[in-house]
């Protein structure tokens, strides 16, 4: 069984602050991490390795520093790592991102492709299903549990709003994983030592099977027209009052608004 896990290096968005003067994101000093859903995906793959002797490859598309994310995955125990990087990939929306990743996946053998459900920076949850479409394989999103019969069949629990679905499908397929489904293991000291000795394959446009017009800015039907920090709504009234006055103010305001 061959598994490929797609991971994205993301800024830890819980650490992001907005510059109040310019309204832009302050990214300096914000740590880069493996996207949380993808980390759960790595854990799922490694459990399949433990249970079914799966061979696990990890792939990321990103700038040179994304190498760190791959090293971390290697230290957790994955077998191979591929780093997709090329100027031609830059400026990609989800469609172009998924084309690049699918182009690389065409070079690999896989029974199962694992992506996170959603990256915490772009927040779209679109790349996984789009990869599955380009590769013409089945997808199951919002995975919270996976069983494998050791032959070809996966039984999957898929989270939905008011419960879950149980679905069955055969390899090859793509699943998108929720971060709280699998608690990721820690890197081992031995793993960390070995991770830096291992080779990470670096692939660019020439190494993958994809049309150039499907990549990067050119291959992106969506464009960010503008970005802004959420507008602060006109400040309302703020009172520092003693309890009685506060209660009186609340009641009169609610009456004024016909709420009570």
């Amino acid at each position, binding site marked *: 069984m061959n598994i490929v896990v797609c991971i994205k290096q993301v800024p830890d968005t819980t650490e992001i602050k907005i510059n109040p003067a310019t309204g832009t994101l302050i990214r300096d000093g914000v740590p880069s991490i493996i996207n949380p859903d993808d980390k759960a995906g790595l854990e799922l793959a490694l459990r399949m390795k433990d249970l079914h002797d799966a061979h696990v490859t990890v792939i990321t598309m990103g700038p040179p520093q994304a190498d760190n994310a791959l090293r971390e995955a290697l230290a957790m125990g994955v077998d191979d790592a591929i780093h997709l990087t090329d100027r031609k990939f830059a400026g990609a929306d989800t469609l172009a991102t998924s084309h690049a990743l699918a182009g690389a996946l065409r070079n690999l053998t896989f029974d199962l492709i694992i992506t996170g459900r959603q990256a915490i920076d772009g927040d779209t949850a679109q790349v996984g299903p789009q990869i*599955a479409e380009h590769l013409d394989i089945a997808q199951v999103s919002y995975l919270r549990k996976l069983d494998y019969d050791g032959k070809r069949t996966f039984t999957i629990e898929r989270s939905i709003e008011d419960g879950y679905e149980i679905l069955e499908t055969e390899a090859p397929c793509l699943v998108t994983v929720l971060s709280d489904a699998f608690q990721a293991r820690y890197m081992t000291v031995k793993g960390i030592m070995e991770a830096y000795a291992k080779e990470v394959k670096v692939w660019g446009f020439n190494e993958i099977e994809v049309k150039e017009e499907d990549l990067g800015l050119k291959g992106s039907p969506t464009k960010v027209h503008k970005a802004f920090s959420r507008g602060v709504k006109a400040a309302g009234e703020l009172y520092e009052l003693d309890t009685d006055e506060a209660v009186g103010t609340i009641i009169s305001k609610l009456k004024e608004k016909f709420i009570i």
Partner: protein
Amino acid sequence: MENSTYKGVYVFAEQRNGEIQKVALELVGKARDLAADLKEKVYAILLGHNIAGQAQMLIEHGADVVICADAPELESYLTEPYTQAMCHIIDLHKPDILLIGATTTGRDLGPRVSARVATGLTADCTKLEIGEDKHLLMTRPAFGGNLMATIVCKEHRPQMSTVRPGVMQSLEADTQRQGEIIMVDVPFATQKFKVRLVKSVKEKTSKIDISEAKILISAGRGMGCCDGLNLVKELAETLDAQVSASRAVVDCGLVGHDQQVGQTGKTVRPDLYFAAGISGAIQHLAGMEESGYIVAINKDKYAPIFQVADLGIVGDARQIIKKLNDRLKN
């Protein structure tokens, strides 16, 4: 691509177990605004089995045309049959705009369809409007709610977007409203059906749906534990309101996850949102800042909740609510 052959504002009218979902009606409501700006029609796409009877409801809520595929293959949602049906309808009707609810169904279906028809998809939008050049401006939160981005898709059609449930407003049903219903036969390629639904399991959910509430009394960590929560419940009862909460309160197990407001909970827009002891983290604000009137009580006058509150009270929420309960009862 010749964009001018693409016309009309289309909505994927999600149904589950034969029931049209609320988000579908919200999108039809929004589609009416967009269609008015473009001088085009609103189309609802209804997929299911023995479902055609529901079409009239979509018309009553604002659809001009319902395009319905009624087939056993579409009984329950599965990615491939639904993608085939959507793509068939897109090929046939050439929508200018296609809106899909950002539910677990919509966010599974949307990207698959957009990749198959090779167009753009904007995720989880909270605002939609028509720009000066008649393109759709799709605004959405990213970076965990820290940033808003307006996305356009100028060269490809349809302009597709998934839209967050609870954000757009549905119209009152007009039982007199007339519309057209078009039935389509989808030529399914069944050899591509690879996933089987074994069963669908409901997990315990309370009957309360906070996204439907007119008044929400929302508790944060500042209300403290049980007794504080009881004060909130009491106030809710008096005002005929529902109780909701921040994640901090949900995490400590005092109220259910289905009552959580925010990015990883529900988006709400009640007439009154009463935030008691909630700091107003960005992930919380993302779920409630569209509320009609926001009252916040917090002992910290710099709490970010005050930036969105219409009425902010700096003080001890427990004492104030206790007294408020007494006063309202007399």
